């Protein structure tokens, strides 16, 4: 188990955008975080998963510099967030779940204003802020540019939240449950935006989500938290291999549908063809989905915790 956990943290020090070691958070007698450790590499999308109360939000707020930890070492973009200054803040983007703040502001006006805070932190390689018209286009709010924020629909507001999070062209972006309340089309557009940020701008992204499908699509690496500890760390593929599970095989023969679960899918399929050859049709082999893997890992950790 230890070996599998370390596999994900094998990142050279200068490539580590996030480096967390033995992070602890204690409220009274309760350990919310109990020795959490993980790293994120430049340009990587890291998904933080876990049941409610596992410590995801606490972890992300410590990394954002919004909350002080009890113990442990945390470095974000080479700096300890607990004492980081405004220059560090300018390199970080946080997508907050808005409610009704800045309701009287017009979309374009707000983004333009917030952009001015980042202008002094522009560098030769990263031009800050993001030009407003480009940004509006990227998040799909060009048509709403002159509208007051309070008149936006829920989905449009969330896209504005994302735009505010990236207006300073962050090197590291925090997304806390970014697509809650999105319809499927908006979700697809949002995923495209995330890919654009990581591919074109080399942005590192840390996201939390309860949507495992989304985590599988977006994340290069997944860290699962339960009871304040990291119980798994690796790519979706690596995690599913880590969990001994059965693979589901579906096929048809003589117009009939068959389903079978096997631990060794490859040898089962070979046997199937040896036996029936040409009669087999519509073959589907499905490994554990991330959802299956996740459920198994969380259940196992609960068994271990009791």
């Amino acid at each position: 188990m230890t070996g599998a956990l370390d596999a994900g943290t094998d990142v050279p020090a200068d490539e580590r955008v996030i480096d967390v070691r033995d992070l602890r958070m204690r409220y009274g007698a309760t350990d919310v975080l109990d020795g959490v450790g993980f790293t994120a590499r430049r340009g990587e999308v890291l998904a933080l998963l876990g049941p409610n109360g596992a410590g995801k939000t606490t972890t992300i707020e410590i990394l954002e510099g919004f909350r002080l930890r009890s113990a442990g070492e945390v470095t974000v973009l080479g700096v300890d967030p607990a004492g980081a200054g405004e220059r560090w803040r300018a390199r970080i983007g946080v997508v907050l779940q808005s409610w009704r703040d800045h309701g009287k502001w017009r979309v374009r006006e707000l983004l333009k204003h917030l952009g001015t805070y980042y202008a002094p932190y522009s560098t030769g390689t990263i031009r800050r802020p993001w030009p407003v018209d480009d940004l509006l286009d990227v998040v799909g709010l060009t048509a709403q540019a002159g509208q007051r924020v309070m008149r936006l629909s829920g989905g449009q507001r969330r896209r504005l939240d994302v735009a505010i999070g990236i207006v300073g062209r962050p090197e590291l972006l925090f997304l806390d449950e970014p697509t809650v309340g999105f319809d499927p089309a908006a979700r697809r557009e949002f995923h495209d935006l995330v890919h654009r940020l990581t591919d074109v701008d080399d942005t590192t992204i840390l996201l939390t989500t309860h949507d495992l499908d989304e985590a599988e699509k977006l994340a290069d690496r997944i860290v699962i938290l339960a009871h304040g500890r990291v119980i798994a760390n690796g790519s979706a593929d690596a995690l599913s291999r880590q969990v001994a599970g059965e693979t589901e095989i579906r096929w048809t023969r003589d117009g009939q549908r068959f389903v079978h679960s096997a631990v060794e899918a490859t040898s089962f399929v070979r046997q199937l063809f040896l036996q029936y050859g040409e009669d087999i049709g519509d073959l589907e082999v499905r490994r554990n989905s991330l959802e299956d893997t996740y459920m198994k890992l969380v259940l196992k950790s609960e068994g271990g915790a009791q």
Partner: protein
Amino acid sequence: MIGTLRIGVARGGIELKQTLTTPTDLFAYLFPAVLLLGTVFFMRNAHVPGTTFSLGASTLPGVLGMGLALGGLLTVSQQLVVEREDGTLLRAKATPNGMTSYVIGKAVVVGGMTILSLLLQLIPGLFLVEGLHVGVGGWLTLAWLIPLAFLATMPIGAVIGSLFENARNMGLAVLPIFGLVAISGIFYPITAMPGWLQGVAQVFPMYWLGLGMRSVFLPDSLAAVELTHSWRHGETFGVLAIWVVLGMALAPVILRRMARRESGSAVAARRERAMATMGR
């Protein structure tokens, strides 16, 4: 630092422009003005006891002083509580130099709103009642009194706003402030109050701002009906200056402590509480 100041002033300017194009905000400016002018209008034929000077005219300047104090204390604290609840402050915290610019912006927008309300009361008031006059000395007094009024009240307002978790508890702060209005000689002469109450009133900026504004607009002969029969500019400056020092010492510490506690989960928890209360 200059950049942060410029951004803060720009922020205040944008928000000021917004309140002027929002009907509910405009109503909030006009309603008290109409109410006060109505009161002053019906008092115009009564006289300040022992003189032939219009009671309405003598009340109006004190009301303007009260407006300055309420703008700094109440508007600042209310906006702070509301904007902490709705997440505006958290956004400021997530932005480089955001908190500093937020505070500067708030001072600009509240300062602007207060001056605007003051003009809305003063200009029609000059036509409704007779006897108000500003001389050269009056203009000079305004030049130090108004900035001092904002510096003495806004930081204290920020402290009050930082201490209250939600808008529904703000009543606890509003009641004592209106208590101060009652004893500060704005609507009812302070000379008619018991001595200990006069003492209490003279500790707080409200009384001195009312007195200062009366000294600007009323003829010097009316100083006779004040405590110690003088406009007491020296004491006015002194007491307000003490409040400036007190506020400037307290506000940064309290504001920082309040800002340190802001996080996404804090705002989310407040939002849930607020939603639950609204649903009831």
